[in-house]
Structure formats: C-alpha cells, structure tokens
C-alpha cells in the first residue's frame, strides 16, 4: 500500500467575499499521478498554492505526511534580464543542493547540454525542463507541476508527459499536475480531479470524461476527433465560464447533483 502524502480536507478559500474554492476533498499518494483540471479561474492554481504554503485556506485543512517533501515547478519563470544567470547557477540555488547532482539531473530531463546557457535565452520547452530539474533537485517525494506543458508545442507536450511518467516510475513519487484539458495528459494519469470552485467529479480518466459534469465543462470527447477540433471546443467553453459569473453559479447548482463520485 502506497502511503498517502497529502489529504485536502474540506478546503475553502474566499477572497474579499468572493468564493474561490469550497469544500475541496482530495488525496495524493506515493506513486500516483493526479491531474487537476478545470477552466480558467476555477481555482486550480489557488488549490496548489494552498498545498505549497503560499496561500492560507479560509476553512478546512491540508494534512501533510511527515515525510512530505515537495518539488515545485511553477507555471513560468520570469527572471529579470538585468540578472545574468546560467542554468547551472539557477539550479545551484536549490536549498541544500548537492552540486554534483546538477548535471546528472539536467541529463535526466534531457538538457545536459544547456548547463552553461543563460536562462534568458531558453525556449519554452527548455525552460520547463530546467524548472522540472530544479523541482527534482529538491529531492521530492511529491512533484507539484503547475501547467507543466505551457508554451510547448504538441510534440513537446507528449515528450514532457512521457518524461514526467518515467520520473514517477523511477522515483515512485506522487505527482500533482495542473492542466487545462485532458486530451494529452489522459494516458499518463491515474486520477483526474475536475474542479470549478468545487470538485465537479473525480476518478479515473475514463470515468471522468464520461461524467456529465465534465462534459458540461469540456464538451463530449469523441474517440476519433482531431486535436484541433477538440482544442477549439475547449476554448469556447472557457470564455463562457470565465466571463459570466451568474451563469457559473447556476452551473454549480446543476453540477452539484452529479457530484462526489469516487
């Protein structure tokens, strides 16, 4: 039995009277890949910021295993261009890092040749890999990845997901990933949690994609639909849910009736 690393218990967050998250229950165990999906503004990033200790929960609590050690990969990296910094120096900033591990870790994520490059000249995919290396250097048993494939083309995305899976297999660490949609990440995920302020539905990818609450947010996935069409639908739904708050409230009421499948 793999040990449970993190349990969210009835997490609620409100900011200036606006409810960002309510009553979130979720667990992540060793060796498990959990993908958090939901439209823009659904509270995905807020939830992981709570786990990271960057955001206080208004109610509920996060139960962390005493051995929990997080490797965090932020959505993007902005380093002021006035700060000259090579990849090597960036990675050496990890607290208590063993400097001999820097090159092997870079090689593990496939960019050993970038050791002496300046961080400002990296491509989107290279930056994501550097951030992944930094997360790994913290010797984590839980990787927290906030939209790890952002700014990466489709081929690159597949490669990155493969890499994340192989790292999970090698380290048997838990992985909590935030993603916009399920299309590419599906095959690599054990559990999907779909949130939109609250948990709409969760379970295996097959279970979730067949779920009415998921389909209400992301549309009905067809087996032979092309990625382009799928992505288009997805964007469309974002706009509706991002801009009209009153509708979101209605959607909640509707979604609740389908909620809490495990």
């Amino acid at each position: 039995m793999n040990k449970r690393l993190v349990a969210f218990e009835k997490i609620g967050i409100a900011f200036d009277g606006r409810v960002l998250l309510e009553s979130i229950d979720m667990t992540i165990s060793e060796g498990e890949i959990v993908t958090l999906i939901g439209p823009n503004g659904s509270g995905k990033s807020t939830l992981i910021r709570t786990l990271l200790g960057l955001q206080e929960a208004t109610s509920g609590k996060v139960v962390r295993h005493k051995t929990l050690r997080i490797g965090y990969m932020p959505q993007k990296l902005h380093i002021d261009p006035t700060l000259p910094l090579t990849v090597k120096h960036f990675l050496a900033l990890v607290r208590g890092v063993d400097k001999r591990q820097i090159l092997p870790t870079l090689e593990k994520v496939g960019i050993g040749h970038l050791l002496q490059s300046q961080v400002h000249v990296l491509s989107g995919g290279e930056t994501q890999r550097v951030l992944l290396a930094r997360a790994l250097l913290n010797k984590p048993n839980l990787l927290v990845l906030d939209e790890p494939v952002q700014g990466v083309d489709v081929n690159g995305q597949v490669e990155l997901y493969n890499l994340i899976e192989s790292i999970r297999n090698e380290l048997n660490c838990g992985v909590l990933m935030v993603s916009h949609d399920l299309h590419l990440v599906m095959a690599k995920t054990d559990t999907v949690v779909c949130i939109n302020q609250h948990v709409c539905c969760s379970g295996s990818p097959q279970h979730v994609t067949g779920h009415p609450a998921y389909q209400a947010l992301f549309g009905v996935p067809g087996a032979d639909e092309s990625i382009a069409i799928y992505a288009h639908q997805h964007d469309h739904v974002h706009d509706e849910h991002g801009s009209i708050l009153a509708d979101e409230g209605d959607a909640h009421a509707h979604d609740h009736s389908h909620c809490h499948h495990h």
Partner: protein
Amino acid sequence: MLDLLLRALLGGLGVASVAGPLGAFVVWRRMAYFGDTLAHSALLGVALGFLFDINLNLAIIVLCVGLALVLVTLQKKHIIATDTLLGILAHSALSLGLVAVSFLDNIRIDLMAYLFGDLLAISQTDVYWIYSGGLAVITLLVIFWKPLLAVTVNEELAKVEGYPVEAIRLLLMLLVALVIAVAMKIVGVLLITSLMIIPAATARKLSQTPVQMASIASVIGCLSVCGGLWASYRWDTPTGPSVVVCAAMLFLVAYTLPFKRLR
C-alpha cells in the same frame, strides 16, 4: 593636502566597494526608486540625530529601516500604486528633513554637504565608520549570498524550498539602509542611489554570472570615485556630482563601445 586627498580616496573606495554589490541587488529587484526613498529619508535621520544628540549613522540606519518597514506594510495593504506611494514618501521625508533641519538654530549644518556629499570634508572617524559599516555589509552579503539570490530570482520557489523569504527581504533592506548611512558623507542623500545602480548597470554588460556582476560593479564604482576625485582636484568641481558623472560616463562607454554582449 595630500592627507586630505588620501582620506577622501580611502573613504570613497570603501563606499564604492559595498555600493556595487548591493546596487546589483537593487537593480535585479527593481528597487531603484525604493532605494531613493530610503536615501531621501536619511536627511530626516540626520536632523533627528542632532535633535536627540545620538550618533548620526545610527539615527540614519534606524530611520531607514523604520521607513522600509512602513513601506512594506503600506505596500501590502494596496492603498495606492507602489510608485506613487514611493514618490509620496520620498519627497515628504526629504521635505520633512529640510524642515526639521531649519529648526536646529543652535547647530550649523552644511546642508549642501548632506544633499550632495562632500568627499573632501571626510574625517578620520568617518573613514572608520565607512570601513566598519562596509565590512559588516560585505560579510552579511557573503554569508547570505545564496538565500539573497534565491529570493531575488524567484520568491515562490525559494519559499517552497524552505528559505525564510520574509527575513531575507528584511535583511536586504537593512543592508540598503546601512549603505545609505555610510555613503551619505560621500555623495549625499540625493545621489546615493546613483552610486549603487549606475556601476551595477554598467557591470551587467560585462558579466555572465551574478558574482561577476557584483564584483565588476565594485570595481567600476571604485574607478568612478578615483575619476571623480581627480576631476574635483583638477578643476575644483563638487566631488559627489563629479563621481556620479564619472560613473555615468563609464556606463555610456560600456554600452556604446562594441564589447561582446555576454548573455
């Protein structure tokens, strides 16, 4: 005369050596205006120091750190945009300092020396202050270099990895306040920030790592002090502004001459 020049040179070099590395942090963290605000408030520190008869350097440090804390608190409350807030505090503090100085009738203060610096009026005690303050700054910078840099590069990553982010930020403010206190004699409250950021900005062009940039900034600051002092001696120009003009000229040279841009 030679004694006077030597003392000025020693003091100036001491200040430039610490202002360089700290200036690099000011540039990286985009704190230039913040530094300015603290520097402007230093005059108020001088006035209060005279008023309560406490050591001027100490008064300046306490006031700068106090103001930095007020600033951070106000910033968190999002009352008004940060640059506006800094503008309000900088000029209110400076004006308050000028007003406070005018109340000190029984003490004659050379206001120009405090505003623009007077390298040639530097005393033996001042040199001791500069070197002990400077040594403290450099020691702290060396000890806390990695956490300071980690927090500068990305605060969230640093926090997740367990760095005490708040404490490190406070340390940086304390260091800026210390440098302002020791540098005031040399370039004055109005020009202190320039001695921090101009050499650091010049060093950016010539460096590939943070350590390189910090050390090159020190060297460039020292060159500016030498040049400014020489100009001041040669043409009888005001020393503080001469040092700054010299630093600005070095900046122009670095960015116009076709050095290989190291990136």
